[in-house]
């Protein structure tokens, strides 16, 4: 787990920094980006294995970021976060290449579980 590199992209600063810290406590190195552009830049710079991407963001939307990541680095695993209870958005995202989706508020153990599954390519 130590060699994992995870990127969290979400415009909710409080949420994303806290989540990064909690992941850190569990030995997962997580970088954070507060919008789509920054997220894409960090994907280029850090080459994370997993990107956790919020679908609702100001500026570039999560779906756009997902499409860009997938076109530039198809090997990157992407998990989607959605604030809507709708499963449709998540399923739509998975059709576009995301590995899985989670609904906010999330359970951290579930997140780590899904990251692991994504890494294993399940």
């Amino acid at each position, binding site marked *: 787990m130590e060699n994992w590199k995870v990127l969290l992209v979400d415009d*909710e600063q409080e949420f994303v920094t806290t989540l990064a810290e*909690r992941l850190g406590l569990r030995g997962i190195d997580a970088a954070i980006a507060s919008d789509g552009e920054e997220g894409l830049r960090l994907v280029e710079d850090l080459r994370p294995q997993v990107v956790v991407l919020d679908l609702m963001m100001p500026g570039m939307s999560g779906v756009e970021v997902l499409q860009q990541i997938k076109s530039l680095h198809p090997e990157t695993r992407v998990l989607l976060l959605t*604030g809507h*209870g709708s499963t449709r958005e998540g399923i739509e995202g998975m059709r576009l290449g995301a590995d899985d989706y989670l609904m906010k*508020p*999330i359970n*951290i153990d579930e997140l780590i579980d899904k990251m692991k599954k994504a890494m294993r390519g399940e």
Partner: protein
Amino acid sequence: MMTWRDRFSLHSLFNFPEEGSTQKRYSLLRRNMIILMILVTIVPLFFMALLNYHQYQSTLRDEIVNPMRVLVNKTKHSFELFLAERLSAVSFVASAYSYEKLSNEVEFNRIFRVMKREFGGFVDLGLIDELGVQVSYVGPYDLKGKNYSEQSWLHETQVRGGYVSDVFMGFRGFPHLVMAVLNNSESLKGWILRATIDTDRFHDLIASMGLDPKTDAFLINKNGVLQTPSKWYGGLLERFPFDLPPASYEANVVEVKDMSGRDVFMAYTYFAHAPYILVVIKPRGEVLRSWYTLKSELFFLFIISVVVIFLVVFKLTDVLVHRMMECDERREAAFREVEHTHKLSSIGRLAAGVAHEINNPMAIINEKAGLMKDLIEFKPDFPDKEKFLGLVGAVLQSVHRCRSITHRLLGFARRMEVQVEVLDLNEVIRETAAFLEKEALYRKVQIKLELDSTLPRIASDRGQLQQVFLNILNNALAAVADGGQVTVVSRPIDDDTNEVIIQDNGCGMPEAVLQHIFEPFFTTKKGTGTGLGLPITYGIVKKLGGNIEVQSQENVGTIFTITLPLRASEESGS
């Protein structure tokens, strides 16, 4: 308050109000339609009938009255001819013979016999000298030497040269009239030739008119005294009971009432050279008998038409207004349905927005509390560790509860896709009931399934149906007391519809609650309910093309009736 005038003014008749109490509105509409339809049909009909009536009446009257007029004229000419002939004869004798010759008894006798033979009707003949004394006389009486100088007819003859008297009774009691002619060629005062004429011939003339038995004809003089006997109005020389008609020498017809109250037509004409009036009287009823028949037929036809119009108008208006009422009701129902759906969907959108906005801060609380928990757990020597873990655990628990609420809200809002499959409704009910077996057992509530095994398989969404039954069964379980009973009945209604009835003997609901149970956020379970269960249920059943109804009585129980089509409707899945 409307006055009578307002109520029936043209304006108010065309006023079909859109608002107001429904019953009043329809009865007003009905009344206005009836009045208008009757007005536009009966009024023209009435005028037509009136016009026809008068047209027929005048035509018929002419047809009947004209022959009377012609007959009267003709008969008058016969009378006048009869009188003129005799007057000419007397005149001729008075002119052709000298006083001396006529004074000769033998000669006078001969002349009289010739007159009698040639003309008929002469009764006697007398010669009166200028002093008024009858100097010669031929006839049945002995009147020679009689002095007429005091009599008015003599004076009239002396003044006018000729005279025709009224009819009078002579000595022998038979009616006759007197004619006199003056000859003043020999002296200034002149002498007079006087003849008496038997009026039997008058009867012949009247008989020759060929009148029907209901018709009366007679002569009167200018004083209104009958000169020939009448059938109804008196005998000879009696007084004619009518006022004299206005003078007219051409035949004229007037309508009068006789003394017995009968309406009669009186055709009459004055004689030009004699003081007589010829009168023909025909009862109006007789004359216009055919008219009366026609009139009653006309009237009968009019009444029948009016009755038929009334019947048709009333029936038609009833049908129309009834149709209108039905349409309005249907429209109203559709409108309410749309309104309800609209309400649900707008509340749904609002709920989704709120849920989404709340989810973000909730995620932050979740992470912050999670981090706190992590930190407490990762530090072995954290003071009051257990207490803090408990507190954080409570926060996380609440977040979890919020999460389930917002997810349900979002679930209510989103349009779930319907996945239609062919399924056994009874099986779905059994499965759903199984979920609740534990709770029922614990509370000793009996869930009784009365499922019709002949129920056809239906095409619908299993998951959604489970949700529907679960929601209602949950409510039923909540409503009944421990040891109560919940009954689920399934049965086919017709070829296309099945029905599921879920009945409990629980606390029931008052009317006020019943009206709102399908509205979102309406709940009686203070604190534990979201008020979304039944609206979601309602939405699902509608989406599946079915219908849901509820009846409830306080302290007796509640019955939910769900009807489902054999095939979920086309719009499902939207």
